[in-house]
Each structure stands twice: as C-alpha cells, then as structure tokens.
C-alpha cells in the first residue's frame, strides 16, 4: 500500500540572481495524479513538508497533453514533460528541477527562446508566394507525407538539447531539433527552393559538424522523432552542397 502522501523535492530559485535551494513537500495522494497535479496542490496550500509557509512553485505549462512542449522539466533526473509524468510510475521522493541548458527564469521555468531563434537561422518555413487562394499545393505520396509528418511533430520542447553533451556554455551548437526541421523543409516540394540557404546555415560555426554523435537526443525525444537519422541525412546534404560549391565555385 502506497503512503497517504506523495513526497516531492523541488529546486527553487526566485530569480536568476538568487541562489537556488531545495524544498520538500508532502501532497495527499489521489488516483491518476501527474506532476502537474502535485504543483496545482502546492498552489492551493503552499506549505513545505516541515509545515513552513512558502510561495507556490513557478512552472511553465499549457496544453497538459504533451503536444505543446511547455511543461518540460527534469523529473527524477530525466528531462520530460510534467503533464505525462504520472505519479504512480515515478520513484519517490519525486525530484523536480528546471532544465539546465537554458537560462533560468524562476523555479522550474527556463527561457527557451534560443530554440525559436535557431528556427530563424535554418529558415524553417515553406516560402509560399502569398496567402491568397492560389489553388491546391503540390501532390505528395502518402509515404512521403508520413515521413514528413513524423518530423513535423517537433514541439520545440528542448529535451534533445538538454541531453546533448555538445550543448554547453562553450559551444554554439544549434542542436538536433533545428537540424531535423531543416530536413523537413528541404524535403518539401516548395521548401526545396531555398534548401541551399538551410545547408549554409548548418555549415558554419555551431553547425552540424559540432554533433558528437552521442545519440542521446533520439532517446530523449518524447515524440520519437528520428533525430539521429535527420542529423545523418543533413550531414550528407551538407557534404554534397560543400563539394558542389567547391567544384563549381557557386
């Protein structure tokens, strides 16, 4: 029989300038709890296990069904979404920490804006002519659609960056998510038209050659995106593009 309460340890940090501390909580157990429910319970009764008043924990969340990527944090040492982290499947005490590869905002909230900047770097869009009614898009086989769909489910959550040893304060590595997005757009019939710009973005400092092939990313991705396959494929495209540039001078 499980205890009547769930024990949780949370790393708290009121702002980037203030030193972090750990707080422990005991939360009455209910069936079907997830980590979000634990945090919601703390909001309603912000007291530590020792009975001291504290502030509610700040965290980032939105859809709560693992399609938006917002509630990503490090739970029992593993980076994942808090919404799909079910309490009955976690070892206790449960530890919650913010992701470590992004600047801290407060408690469990980090600033992942670099990931959206990276999507600018790789020109992650289909360059359509305009949004007016210009008829149907290009035909695509169901096989190609399914392949692309697997890549297009990336929610920019940051799990792959968090586990990548090449993402660190001394590196500019763009990381797996953006590389895989470049593959998605380079495979699109219209997106192909600016494929070389994407490849050039992946050639410079912090580009694809910074990948150390640790393969942690593909294991951490909550959407099972074939990230290492994407890195391999883009590596191939970059090499061919570099050779072509070298030979033709264009």
């Amino acid at each position: 029989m499980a205890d009547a309460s769930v024990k949780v340890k949370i790393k708290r940090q009121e702002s980037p300038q203030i030193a972090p501390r750990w707080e422990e909580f005991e939360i009455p157990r209910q069936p079907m709890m997830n980590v979000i429910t634990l945090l919601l319970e703390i909001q309603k009764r912000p007291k530590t296990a020792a009975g001291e008043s504290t502030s509610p924990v700040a965290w980032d969340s939105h859809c709560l069904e693992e399609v938006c990527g917002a509630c990503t944090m490090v739970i029992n040492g593993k980076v994942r979404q808090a919404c799909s982290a079910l309490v009955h499947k976690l070892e206790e005490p449960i530890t919650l920490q913010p992701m470590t590869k992004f600047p801290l905002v407060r408690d469990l909230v980090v600033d992942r804006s670099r990931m959206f900047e990276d999507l600018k770097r790789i020109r992650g869009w289909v360059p359509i002519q305009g949004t007016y009614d210009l008829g149907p898009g290009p035909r695509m086989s169901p096989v190609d659609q399914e392949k692309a769909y697997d890549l297009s489910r990336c929610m920019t959550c940051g799990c792959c960056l968090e586990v990548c040893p090449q993402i660190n304060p001394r590196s500019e590595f763009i990381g797996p998510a953006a590389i895989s997005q470049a593959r998605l757009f380079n495979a699109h019939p219209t997106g192909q038209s600016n494929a070389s710009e994407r490849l050039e973005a992946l050639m410079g400092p912090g580009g694809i050659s910074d990948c150390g092939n640790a393969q942690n990313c593909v294991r951490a991705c909550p959407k099972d995106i074939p990230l290492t396959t994407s890195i391999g494929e883009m590596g191939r495209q970059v090499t061919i593009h570099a050779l072509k540039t070298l030979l033709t001078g264009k």
Partner: protein
Amino acid sequence: MAKPAFIVVGGGLAGLMTTIRLAESGHKVDLLSFVPVKRSHSVCAQGGINGAVNVKGEGDSPWEHFDDSVYGGDFLANQPPVKKMCDAAPGIIYLLDRMGVMFNRTAEGLLDFRRFGGTKHHRTAFAGATTGQQMLYALDEQVRRYEVDGLVTKYEFWEFLAAVVDEKGVCRGVIALNQIDMKVHAMRADAVMLATGGPGVIFGRGTNSTTCTGTAASAAYQQGVHYANGEFIQVHPTAIPGTDKLRLMSESARGEGGRVWVPKDVKDKRSARSIPESERWYFLEDMYPAYGNLVPRDIASRAIYKVCRDMGMGIAGSDMVYLDVTHIPRKDLDRKLGGILEIYEKFVGDDPHDEPMKIFPAYHYSMGGIWIDFDHMTNVPGLFAAGECDYQYHGANRLGANSLLSCVIGGEVAAAAMTKFAGGLEKRSEAVPAAPFDTEKKRQEEIYARLRAMSGSENPFVLGEELAATMRNNVSIVRENDKLKETDAKLLELRERFSKLGIPDKGQWMNQSLIYMKQLWNMLELARVIALGALARDESRGAHYKPAFPERDDPKWLKTTKATWSKEGPVFSYEPVDISLLPLRVRKYDVDKKAAGPAVAAKG
C-alpha cells in the same frame, strides 16, 4: 501619413492568420501572447478542418457545408458570415497545404478527407490526429518569416490588460503586462485584434489549456465591449477523466468508425472485450439511426449524460461509457488517429488498439464570445476580435472541425477590415496625446499594487476551484433555473471572498499568483455573463438545454444575447439573428435533415 501599425493579442490560429495577412501587405505588427506562440491552445485541436472539396464524389458543396453548419448550430448564427466561411473553406485548406501542413493523403497523392459529426459527407481534412498542432506550426513558420523581415515583433509571456480608448471612444492601443519582470506597458496601434481564445478555465477541468481563462475578453467586456451568446457552452462528448485536465478524445475517433456503447447489463463485470456484441448497447446508433455515432456534440453529450445519470447505465454504474475503435485495423488507426491514441495510452495506461477507451463528456468550447460585426469589429471602433473569443460562426452548437476553419477565416476577414479601418483614421495612434495611455496604465498598475498588498486568509487558487466546481455542476449539459440562481448566489459569494484574499507570493519576478488573481476577478465577471445568460434563456437550443423548457422557441428566443457590463452585473439586451439565407427547420438527428420539417417562423 505613415503606414498604420497594428497590435494582435493572441498567437493561436486566429491571431497568427491576422498577423500574416497584415504583414503580407507590408504592415508592422506587434504580436502579444501568454506563451511562445508555437505553444498556443490551437495545438490541442485534433480531428481536422472542414471544407467541401468533394473528393469522394458525394455531391458535397460549400452550400451543403453551410446548411449543415447553420442546422448544427440550431439557427442561432447570423447566416451571411457562416456562408462566407463555408465558401472560403476549400481555398483555406489548399492554402494550408501550400504552407506545408502535413495533411493525410490518398494513394493518388491528393488530400484525404474524413467524416465528422453533424454531416453525411467526408469533409474534414486532417493531419493524423494533431491537425491543430500542424496548422499552428505552419502559421507560426510563416510569421517567423515576417519576423526575420522585421515586420513582426513578438512579445511572448505578455498579457493584455486593457484597451486604450481615446476621448472619441476609439481604441488606440493596449496596456500589457510583461509576465517575467511584472512591468506594465502602454502600446500604441491603429487597430487592435483580440484573438485570445475561450474561457474554459472558468469551468476548471475540461479540454482547454491553462491560459484559456477568457481574461482578455472579460477585461474588454468590463470596458464596455459587448459579449454575445455567453450561455452557449459546448460540452464535448468524449474526454478522458483526469485530475488536472480532462483530455480530449477527438470526434475523429468516431469519424473513422469508432462506436460508443455500454454493457446492456449494468452489473456486467466482464472486461469490455469479452462482452459479446449482442450484450452491448450502442445507444447513439439506437437513438439516432440516421447519424449514429456522428451526431453533433450537444446531442451526443446529452445522450451520454442521460445513459449515465438518468438511467444509471454507465460502465459498472459509473460516469463512463466505452468509445471503441478496437475493430478498426491497427494500420489505419496509427495513420489516422495515432496522436490521440498515444495520448490515451500515455495518460491512462491502456492501449486503445486493444481495449475500448473509457470516456465522459467535458467542457470544451464557447460558442459565445465578444460581439463583433460582419467585419469582426467590436462595438469599440478599432478593436477587433477573431477565433474562439468571438461569437460569430457557430450559433448554439459548433460542428466539429469548424473551429479551425473559423479561426482562419476570422483572421483573414479581420485583417482586411483592420487595414481599411486604419486607413480611414484622421491621425495615427502616434499622434494621440499621452493622456489616455497614461491614465489606463496607471489604473492597471494600481490594481496590481492593491492585489499585491492583500493579506487576507483566502487562497486565490482555492477560490478558482470553487468557481469551476459550481460552473461545472450547474451550467453544463443540463440547466435548471433554480440551480442557475444558486450559481449566481455562489458567484456573488466568491466576489465577496475575493476581498479577503491573501497573496501567496511576494516575489517581484514572474509572480504567477499575482497574475492569476487578476485573471480570477475577470473570470468571476465573465462567469456571471454565462450563468445569468443561461438563466434568462427559457428554451432549449443547441448546447443550451433546459428540461423545463425542452423545445426550441423561435418566436421568443431566436435572438442573439448581448451582455453589457455594469457595476451591478451584466445587463442583457437582444438582437435579431440574420436568417436571410436559410429558412428555419426543426433540428433532429434521428432522421436525415431533409426529412425534418419546417419550424414556426419568428415573430417580428
């Protein structure tokens, strides 16, 4: 005069579409959002987007789509905008396809379409079962392109607090909060769009995301913007029970052949799979032979409610029924419904390929919202609204897969109207004196200062939970006047207790308690619009069902509810519905819609 500049509040589908259209014609746009726009609530839309492309030779047409939508909405929607939406739908789907939305394909490489509720046609384009996410991403990508071009500036983790209205009553900008450093800002624009989504958090657990509080719509309402048809709330028939959220199980599960049933014997203890076909009651197919499992959502939710609550026939007497897709080939399920089945498996633990899912209705969508004209402008000139936060397209009940469509068309129509409006202004917002901006900014800062100083014994999150419980219990599928009166008494009690709140967080940095407290007040204001609007409307129409008044009453109630804010509470007025295109008919789903007879015309 310089080119006009615009503010768009909200980065879901409607806000992004507005932004793209404005930027496409070379205008500068400031885009405000609670969350990085790629994480907006539109990601939760699953099943698809409607458009009569007629790829299956079924004789579908935009007119048929229009007829289904008006009929599905029980004739409460103004018909001309709905017609415009359905006419534009095929072009919108093609546009999204060109943007790279990974819609499912037929073997020939054409867009595939599936069935959805309230229609007999394959009219719903879909990208697996994560269509909203895929559409949002495509629009997000196009906006990023304009960001790189310097036309769009994003303000993420920013919150709309109020519109700035000049001495002539024209909206000239907004007051907004940066939720990270908690500073309040005044921002100028020549037209402002609110694309701020629905008010689901008022009902607590439901299918909505955590920011869907309706706080922006409520703030605008408290500034004199009319709120229309607030009492029309869609309860989705199939959601997964949970402690933090009731996750949506898309209508597409039924569109692809999923069946809803309960054991004929409520005492049946066997596992679902071992109950033979003859001992299952497929009650939707039984009650509504013409549409079966694909009746509109209001009808399906009421049927499930009746089976569980009135007849006590839920699974083992509980508030749950089976949604069964186990008879559909695994490969088809993975290709067409993969995303939602994965959600069920992750959050419940059972594999829906093998075990029927257990579901129950949950709060899903507000048909009501900010009152707008056919150009999406509110009654405050210069202030526009689109997406779930407006009331325009869905009448008394929205058909599945029409919401993504209404977001896109809303953004398109509004962007054109905003440009036209700004073009007609005598002076740019820049030239407006600072006074109205300073006054409103100061008022908002003072509100936060007061909230920050609160030291009473009540916890805001506990109050919010009580609000949600009372709304869920009393203003949901079945509505009774005495319960609605009780609800308003409870809402007044909660307002009283609001004055005894203590702020649980003294922090100066991303203070989520302080942010929530202000939103809670706005939710309490909007909750009264919903509850009292429902109390006033003594009829049953679409999602609004009163057993004491079981029929639609066109002579008395074929009219749009308009709530206007006052200190004492919402003041209701009513305006006629534009039914210039389709004559009224009785709405029934046990027979084909052509067989349902004409209705008594409204008087006057």
